[in-house]
């Protein structure tokens, strides 16, 4: 990027909010996604919506790319810079603007950390359910961009179910506000549902209005261990069939159990083939009754052990341990490649078996964990990026895993987004006409393709072997 242009950008945000040292470029080249990185030309920390608007207008005029970023914990490369791009860093926008206790809403800035929103609203007896694995550091802006899920998705849904309004800067620099505190509002197109999950390609958020609900009175957390994965899967089906909707039903396989235990030392049985972490919440009487029923269902399905958390502290430590699953798996091998295959709940056990078979076929070590209640699985390949032959087998294996996922009526990503990491699978998943509608929307709102380009959509159909040169822009980390 020309230094004159960089100077122009510097003068928009002020020199203290403009970073372009080699060191800064290096550390904003990645997010939480393995194997993908690319250095930006500069990192800007805008102070208000007008500055963002100014930057985007300049981007259209001067043809450079803009990539928004929160804490950089995404798992699909959504905030990884692309060629000729600057990063807009939003993590300092961390004010909780208003909690409206009458309308049960909160206006927040996009850089508010999800867990701190939880803490603030819970002080008032309110509740914001979406709780992604990285909730202690990920931001609301990133959650909205990726339509993040979490452990409580089964009962409470995901981020999109809690977004009532968004103020944002559109790719052309216009500042647009849509949605509001009305529970019912059918005036015009529902823009906010288009924006949630747009992966930073349709606008940069400056304010978000979230929906709150009353905080559940109490909760109970159970752990159940099984000698066979199928028994765990049957347990989940039976729980749902008996009309209990737990807020959390998490599944860990043996590889994951061992890794998590090595980190957290909470006494998980390392020989168990499957573990279910279940939580029910609500009114005391209901919670008690549901927990007893779940306990009985686990036993009936041959659980080798069922444990009920003694208190909140133990429940929290169990859930925190589950949140570390992805990172804990990195203890086993140098490189951890995480996927996000999701199928209708009833097909989850079949998918797990298929993945096991594929792992054996390609001689790979794949750990499985995920949100069993949602059918959202995170098969995680434990490998070594320096072993080219193995990495090639990993690619083939994941191709097959996604084929199986789609055959089972599933999706290539349940909660991480497409980003850079999964775009080559998108065409397998979405039919050409529908995909074209999406591309048209992107073209209409961002005709110069300056906002987070290269994410979600590939420029060309996927081909076997090496990607075309213009796509192969990310160096291997």
């Amino acid at each position, binding site marked *: 990027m020309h230094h004159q242009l960089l100077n122009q950008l510097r003068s928009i945000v002020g020199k203290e909010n403009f970073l372009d040292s080699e060191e800064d470029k290096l550390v904003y080249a990645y997010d939480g996604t393995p194997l993908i990185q690319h250095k930006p030309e500069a990192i800007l920390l805008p102070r208000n919506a007008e500055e963002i608007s100014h930057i985007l207008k300049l981007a259209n005029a001067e043809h450079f790319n803009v990539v928004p970023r929160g804490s950089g914990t995404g798992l699909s490369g959504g905030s990884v810079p692309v060629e000729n791009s600057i990063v807009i860093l939003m993590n300092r926008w961390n004010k909780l603007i208003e909690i409206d206790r009458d309308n049960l809403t909160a206006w927040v800035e996009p850089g508010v950390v999800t*867990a701190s929103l939880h803490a603030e609203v819970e002080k008032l007896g309110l509740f914001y359910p979406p709780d992604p694995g990285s909730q202690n*550091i990920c931001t609301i802006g990133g959650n909205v961009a990726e339509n993040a899920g979490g452990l409580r998705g089964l009962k409470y849904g995901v981020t999109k179910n809690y977004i009532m309004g968004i103020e944002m800067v559109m790719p052309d620099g216009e500042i647009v506000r849509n949605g509001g505190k009305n529970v019912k509002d059918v005036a015009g197109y529902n823009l906010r549902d288009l924006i949630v999950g747009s992966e930073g390609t349709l606008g940069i958020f400056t304010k978000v209005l979230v929906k709150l609900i009353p905080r559940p009175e109490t909760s109970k957390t159970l752990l159940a261990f099984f000698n066979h994965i199928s028994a765990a899967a049957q347990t989940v089906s039976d729980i749902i069939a008996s009309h209990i909707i737990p807020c959390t039903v998490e599944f860990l396989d043996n590889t994951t159990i061992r890794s998590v235990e090595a980190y957290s030392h909470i006494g998980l049985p390392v020989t168990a083939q499957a573990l279910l972490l279940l939580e029910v919440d609500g009114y005391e009487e209901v919670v008690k009754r549901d927990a007893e029923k779940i306990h009985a269902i686990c036993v009936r399905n041959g659980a080798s052990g069922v444990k009920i958390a003694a208190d909140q502290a133990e429940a929290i430590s169990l859930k925190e341990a589950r949140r570390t699953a992805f990172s804990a798996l990195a203890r086993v091998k140098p490189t951890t490649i995480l996927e996000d295959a999701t199928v209708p709940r009833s097909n989850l056990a079949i998918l797990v078996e298929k993945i096991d078979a594929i792992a054996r076929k390609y001689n790979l070590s794949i750990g499985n964990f995920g949100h069993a209640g949602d059918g959202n699985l995170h098969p995680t390949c434990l490998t070594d990026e320096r072993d080219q032959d193995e990495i090639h087998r990993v690619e083939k294996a994941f191709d097959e895993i996604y084929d199986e996922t789609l055959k089972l009526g599933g999706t290539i990503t349940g909660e991480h987004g497409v980003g850079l990491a999964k775009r080559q699978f998108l065409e397998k998943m979405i039919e050409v006409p529908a995909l074209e509608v999406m591309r048209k929307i992107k073209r209409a709102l961002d005709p110069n393709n300056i906002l987070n380009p290269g994410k979600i959509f590939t420029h060309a159909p996927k081909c076997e072997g090496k990607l075309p040169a213009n796509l192969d822009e990310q160096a291997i980390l």
Partner: protein
Amino acid sequence: MHCGLCLPVCPTYALTGLEKNSPRGRIRMIRAVADGELSLTGNFKESINFCLNCQACVTACPAGVQYGQLVEAAQLHIEADNRAKGKSSWIKRFSLDWVFSDLKRLRFIGKLMRGYQRAGLESFIQRVGILKLFSIKLHELSYMAPPVPARRSLHINKQRAPFTKKDIRVGLLPGCVQDVFFRDVNQDTVDVLNLNGYDLFIPEKDYCCGSVHGHNGNLDMARQLARKSIDVYDAAGVDYVVMNSAGCGAYMKEYGHLLADDPIYAERAVKFASRVKDISEILAEQGWIAPTKSITGKVTYHEPCHLVHTQKISHQPRELIAGIPGITFVELPEATWCCGSAGIYNITRFEDAMQVLERKMNNIRNSGAEYVVTGNPGCMIQLMFGAKKYEVPVQILHPVSLLNQAYRQEV
């Protein structure tokens, strides 16, 4: 693995919100330097030197990344480069090369300070603010030193007979900073161990663990001190070496690593390290006599980084405190967050250390505690200073001192 789960626990990331000041960013830069992709730039040095080395990120890392070792290697590399270029800061060279290189000099400084404090010179100079003429930092720093007690030798109080007898011989290491500023903590340690029936070995000469040297680039000196300690305590035939300074204990537990390439000492060092115990650790393992007389007051516990993150000791000191009748124990919010003392960080990076300290003191104020208990002399100095600077009405105590206060009432 670069998932970012280390970010929320990093004090310097919390202060700046910038990736280069996070563990994840530092690791990426260290890797770039190691790969020859980045040279030892000023920005790189600044990011690394800004790190408190509190190792909260190591505790937080599910993947088990050993950040501490990486950043320490980087710090050694940087210090060597600075010295080669004659750019090492005077305050660092003075404290490391002169004060800490010989315990006699530290004692001497301690004596000077005691004289200076007792003659009323300290409060005079601080009131007049004469040091501001030289440097504002020096003026502020002058408030940091706690009162230096008179030097008495450690003694086993014969009037206070042990409650029980144990067949365990333990050695004490009185330490450097602890011994100058917190002589009473050492005496409390002697009393508590004696009352709990341990057979005590107190070396006639003083020995230093070598951590200050090791952490700041003088590995030869650190190894020499480590070998000396191993000789002395091995010869005394102790079962354990008991520490009341988290920083020293943490370092001595790493002697195996420090002397791994030493043909004579490597094996002995591993054995020695396995015998090093924090005072709260050994009491929790072996059991201790619960005091019967009560102490009233609201007490909270600040976790020294070198106990919780390095030695993974966290519940033991709380159990000691909770075992004292009459005490109301309150949890300190963010108890595991660094206080900013961090070795000599509060001297070499005073302004940054103060920002970290302010957060800690706000948490202490909000806890409403009258006593803050913590088991590391560096933390004690920093928190005492914080209480003065931010006007928080608390007393800072070592857990062993609180326990001995309770015991003392029984005699």
